[in-house]
């Protein structure tokens, strides 16, 4: 009984760590200067937070003997698709000329894109 209680406490502690990571990424989401740095903060931190929370939930129910295949698929799906959606958003932002922050020093993708447009015409 006591051992199960301690494992449940460890799972709940994983949930707390994930929530703090998600909160810090949200703080980065309002404080950083442009869309690309905000995407950097948000996608990494929020993905890590939700993975901690879902793994904690999975362990919490796993020690009761309940293996949930739906929760397992949910973990796998979020882990696969959250970086992909961040990539698609940032690509759409760059293609539709959202400006970079003033502090950024070099932009290698711009020359490559101009060369691509020049070769197509």
């Amino acid at each position: 009984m006591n051992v199960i209680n301690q494992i449940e406490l460890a799972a709940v502690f994983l949930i707390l760590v994930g929530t703090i990571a998600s909160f810090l990424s949200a703080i980065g989401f309002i404080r950083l200067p442009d869309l690309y740095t905000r995407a950097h903060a948000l996608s990494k931190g929020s993905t890590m937070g939700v993975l901690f929370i879902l793994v904690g939930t999975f362990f919490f129910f796993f020690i009761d003997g309940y293996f949930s295949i739906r929760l397992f698929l949910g973990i796998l799906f979020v882990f696969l698709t959250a970086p992909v959606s961040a990539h698609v958003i940032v690509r759409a932002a760059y293609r539709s000329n959202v400006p970079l922050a003033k502090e950024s020093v070099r932009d290698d993708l711009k020359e490559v894109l101009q060369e691509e447009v020049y070769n197509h015409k």
Partner: protein
Amino acid sequence: MIQGILLCSLTFLSFAIFVTVFRLVKGPTALDRVQALDALGINLISGVAIFSVFIRSTGFFEVILLIGILSFIGTIAFARFIERGVVIERNQSD
């Protein structure tokens, strides 16, 4: 003890959702708002997971999977619409 930690993490998650809604209102471009909606979906997944631990029920796991899939599809559709002007392209072989 467990209930206290779960309430604390729900509070942190509520702060995160509030901050994301702030960026959703303020964000200068449309892609910021799309990004905020994506983060809101992910935070909702976390909220459902924490709540199902809180009431010790296993009935909400389909909701986690479903919100994940719907949020991903919505984000991809919005980004394609902003990048190319259409969501589903027509057949160009005619």
